[in-house]
C-alpha cells in the first residue's frame, strides 16, 4: 500500500510547511501603516523610501480596486486598512461616497494637489495623472486629418471608417473617457459620438499594448491609448511606427484620469496615514512615477523623459468626481450605442 503512505507523508509535509509559513508572517510586528493598494507597480520601492525618509513603516496589500474597496467594507470597523490607494478617480469617488474615506485637513496636500484632482470635501487626493489620447501611424495618417478642437468627437467622422481601434468596455479607461464626454457635452451628444465610433466599425482590443501593436503594424490607423503605455513601449522599442497627438488642444483639452489615495475612516493611525499622503504628494512624487512614465500631479515635479518628450498639453478641466458619478451611465451609454 504505497498510496496511503504517500498521502500521509504529503499531508505531513504540507502541514509542516504551512505551520512554518504561518509563523513566518505571524511573528512579524505589524507595521505602523497598513495600505490597501490597487497600485502595485514599484510600490515596494516607494514605501521603502517613505520609511527611510520618515521612519514610519508600511505593510501593503496589492489587489484590484473594487475588490479591495469591498474588502474594507466587509471588514467594517475592524479593518486594518489605514490608506486606500487606487488607479482611478471613479473608485476614489465611490469609496468616499460609500463612507469609507475620512476627510483630511492638510495645507500641504491642498498646496501640492491642484483642486481639480482632489475631492471637494478632501476625502481623497489624486497623486499621479495619465492622459488618454490619440496615437496614429504616420505612414497612413496625415495629422491634419485629426480634429484638433474635439479630437474624440472627430473620430466619429466617416473619414475614420474602418481605420479606428479602441479599448473594450471592461477596463476602466473607455468608461471614464465616455463619462467625461457626458460631463462635457451632455448625454445626447456623447451618445451621438459613441454611435459615430460604432458606425466607423471601431475595432475593439482588450489591451493598450495590443492597440499600440495594431497601429505600429498598420492594421489600425488611429487608436486611443494611455500616454504611459506608449512611453513604456517606446523605451523598449524606440523604432515603433507610432506618433502621439494630444487630443482636443484647440478645444476642451485632453482627457485625463488620476491615480490617488485616501485615509480610511476606521484607521487607528490617521496621523501617520496623513503623513504618508503628504509625502506621496510632495517628496515621494519622483518615486511614485519612477520607471512608469505617469505625470506627477504636483506641478513642481517634472515627468520622466519620454513622457515629457510628448510635450506640454492642456488637460480637460473637468471635475474628477464626474468619472465616478457618471461611470454607470457611461457603461449604459456604451451598451446603448452597441459599442463592443
Amino acid at each position, binding site marked *: 500500500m504505497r498510496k496511503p503512505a504517500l498521502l500521509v507523508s504529503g499531508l505531513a509535509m504540507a502541514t509542516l510547511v504551512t505551520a512554518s509559513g504561518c509563523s513566518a508572517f505571524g511573528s512579524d510586528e505589524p507595521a505602523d501603516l497598513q495600505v490597501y493598494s490597487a497600485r502595485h507597480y514599484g510600490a515596494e520601492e516607494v514605501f521603502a523610501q517613505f520609511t527611510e525618509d520618515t521612519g514610519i513603516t508600511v505593510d501593503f496589500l496589492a489587489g484590484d480596486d473594487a475588490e479591495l474597496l469591498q474588502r474594507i467594507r*466587509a471588514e467594517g470597523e475592524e479593518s486594518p486598512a489605514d490608506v486606500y490607494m487606487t488607479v482611478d478617480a471613479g473608485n476614489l469617488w465611490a469609496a468616499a461616497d460609500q463612507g469609507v474615506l475620512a476627510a483630511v485637513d492638510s495645507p500641504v496636500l491642498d498646496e501640492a494637489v491642484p483642486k481639480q484632482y482632489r475631492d471637494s470635501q478632501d476625502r481623497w487626493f489624486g497623486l499621479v495623472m495619465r492622459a488618454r489620447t490619440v496615437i496614429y501611424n504616420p505612414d497612413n495618417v496625415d495629422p491634419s486629418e485629426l480634429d484638433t478642437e474635439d479630437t474624440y468627437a472627430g473620430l466619429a467622422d466617416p473619414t475614420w471608417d474602418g481605420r479606428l481601434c479602441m479599448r473594450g468596455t*471592461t477596463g476602466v479607461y473607455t468608461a471614464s473617457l465616455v463619462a467625461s464626454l457626458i460631463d462635457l457635452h451632455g448625454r445626447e451628444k456623447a451618445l451621438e459620438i459613441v454611435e459615430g465610433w460604432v458606425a466607423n466599425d471601431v475595432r475593439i482590443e*482588450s489591451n493598450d499594448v495590443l492597440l499600440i501593436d495594431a497601429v505600429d503594424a498598420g492594421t489600425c490607423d488611429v487608436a486611443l491609448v494611455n500616454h504611459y503605455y506608449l512611453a513604456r513601449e517606446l523605451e523598449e522599442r524606440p523604432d515603433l511606427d507610432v506618433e502621439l497627438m494630444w487630443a482636443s488642444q484647440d478645444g476642451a483639452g485632453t482627457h485625463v484620469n488620476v491615480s490617488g489615495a485616501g485615509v480610511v475612516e476606521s484607521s487607528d493611525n490617521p496621523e501617520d496615514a496623513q503623513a504618508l499622503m503628504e509625502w506621496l504628494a510632495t517628496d515621494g512624487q519622483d518615486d511614485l512615477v519612477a520607471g512608469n512614465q505617469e505625470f506627477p500631479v504636483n506641478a513642481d515635479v517634472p515627468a520622466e523623459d519620454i513622457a515629457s518628450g510628448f510635450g506640454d498639453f492642456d488637460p480637460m478641466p473637468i471635475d474628477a468626481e464626474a468619472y465616478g458619478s457618471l461611470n454607470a451611465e457611461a457603461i449604459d451609454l456604451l451598451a446603448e450605442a452597441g459599442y463592443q
Partner: protein
Amino acid sequence: MTQTAFPPPPTRLSARGPAQARIRRASSRGRPGWSAFVVLVAVLVAAPVLGVLIDAGTGQAPDLPRNVGDMVLTTLLLMGGVGLGTLVLGVGLAWLVTAHTFPLRNVLVWLLVLPLAMPAYILGFVFLSTLDAAGPVQSAVRGVVGDGFAFSLATLPGCVVVMSLTLYPYVYLMARAAFVEQAPTTYDAARTLGAGRARAFFRVLLPLARPSVAAGLALVMMEVLTDFATVQYFNVQTVSVGVYLVWKGSFDFASAAQLASLVMLFAVAVLAGERLMRGRSRFTQKGGRGSGLRPAPLTGARAWLATGVCLLALGASFFVPVLRLGAWAVERAASDRPSALGGQFGEAFVNSVVVAVIASLTCVTLALVMGHALRLGGGRSIRAAAQLTTFGYAVPGAVIGIGTLLTFAWADRTLEAVGVPGGTGLLVTGSVLGILYAYAVRFLGPAYQAVDAAYASVPTTITQSALSLGAGPVRLLGRVHAPLVRSGVAVALVLVAIDAIKELPLVLLLRPFGFTTVSVSVYQLAKENLWDQAALPALVIVALAMVPVFLLFRQVRHGDRGSRP
C-alpha cells in the same frame, strides 16, 4: 430550488430478490452520521454563495444592463460552441491515445493534459498578441502576400476555438479514465461478438463513458460560465462580463450579485443537463477487469497522422503560448535588468505549492467521503445537498471571494454577539485558512464531479455484497469504494491541484498582508503589461502544473502494469 432541479438519484438498486429488498429498505433510510456529514459540507460550501444571494437582495431595484439579452445569447452560443469543440477534441483524443499505439503516444498521452496548466488571462493575451492581425504571424503572411491580409481573431468564433483548445483536457481526462477503467471487458465482448472497432466504440464504449464525459463537459461549461479573462480578450460579452461591468461601473457589489445569480441559474441548467445526459439507465461494470483494452498498433501513414493530430492540438493550445512566453523570458534575461524571480518569488512558490497540495487533498477527501455517504443511502435530499457543493465552481471567483468575506463578517458578528471577543478572527487579518476555505468552496465542484462519475461505474451490487457480508461503512470506504474509484480520485487530485495553482481572484481578495503566490505575481506584472517580466514566472506556473499531471500518468502506467500478469 435544488430539490426539483435534479432527476432521481443515479444509483438505483437494480437487483431484485428478498435479500436485496431488505438491504434496499435499510439503505433508503441512510445512515444518519454519514448523511449529516454531507449536509454539513453542503452548508459550509453553500454559505458564501448564499451570502452573495442575500447581499443581492439588499441591492437597489434590479438594474440589469440593457444588453443583458444579448449577453445571455452570447453565453449560450459560447457554451454550445465550446461544448461541441471540447467534446470532439476530448473524446476523440482520449480514444486515439487509449486504443492505439503510434509514435510518441506514451509521451503525448500526458502532454495532452497540459493546456489546462495555462491561466486563461495569459492565454488570451498570448494568443491575440501572436496570432491576431497585428501579431508576428499575420505580419509575416502580409510580408509575403501583401498588405491586404488581416483578419481579426477577437470574435466569438475565435473565442470558441481558443477556449475549446484549452478546456478540452477536462473531457479528455474524464473520458480517458472511463475508457481505461471501465471499458475493457465490455469492449472485448462487443469485439468478440463481431462488432468492428468503430462500431464497438460508438455503440458500446461511448455510452459506457457517458457519465464521465458528461461530468467533464459540465466542468467545461462552468469554466466557460465563470471565465472573465479570455472572453474579455476576445471581446465576447457573456453574463460574467456583465457582472464585472455592473460591479466596476456602478461600484455597487449588490447589483452585480444580482447578475451573478443569473450565472448560477445557468449552472443549475448545466447540472440538470448533465444528469439528463447521463441518462436514466446506469452503466456499471460487471465482472473483473478482463484483459484490458489492448491498444491496436497503427502503422505507416496512419500512425504518423495520429501523431500529427495530437501534435497539432498540442501545438495550438500549448506549444505556441509556451514558445512565446519563452521568447519573452529570453529577451528579458538577455537584457541587463533584474529577473522577476528575485525577492519574494521563493516564498510565493512555496505558498503556491502548499496551498495547491492542501486544497486538492481536502477537496478530494471530502468528495470521496460524500460519494461514499450517498452510496450508503439517504435519498433525494442528501443527493441534492451533495450536488449543492458543486455550485461554487459555477460562480466567478471574485464573487465567491466577496461571499467568503461576507460569511466571515457574519460569523464574527454572531460570535461577538454571544460573547466571543474578536469572533473567528478570520476576517480582520485575512488568513491562509480563509483562502483554503474559499478554495474548498470553489473547487469541490471538479473534485466531486470526477469522483462521483467514478462511483457511477461501481456496481451497486458490490456495495450491497460488502454490507451484507458485514463490512462496516468505514471498512467499506477504505477497502472497497476507495480502491474502486481510484482513477476518479487521481483525476480529481490533478484537476484541483492545477486549478489551485493557477487560481487568482480568491487569493488576491482574501490574502493576508505579505502572502503571495506565483499566480498573483504573474498577474500583477501582466496587469501592467510587463509581459517580458511576467513570462518567466508564468512558465513556472506551467511547470508546476505539469507535476501532478506527470504523477497521475506515472501512477496510471504503474496501475496498468500491476493489473496484468
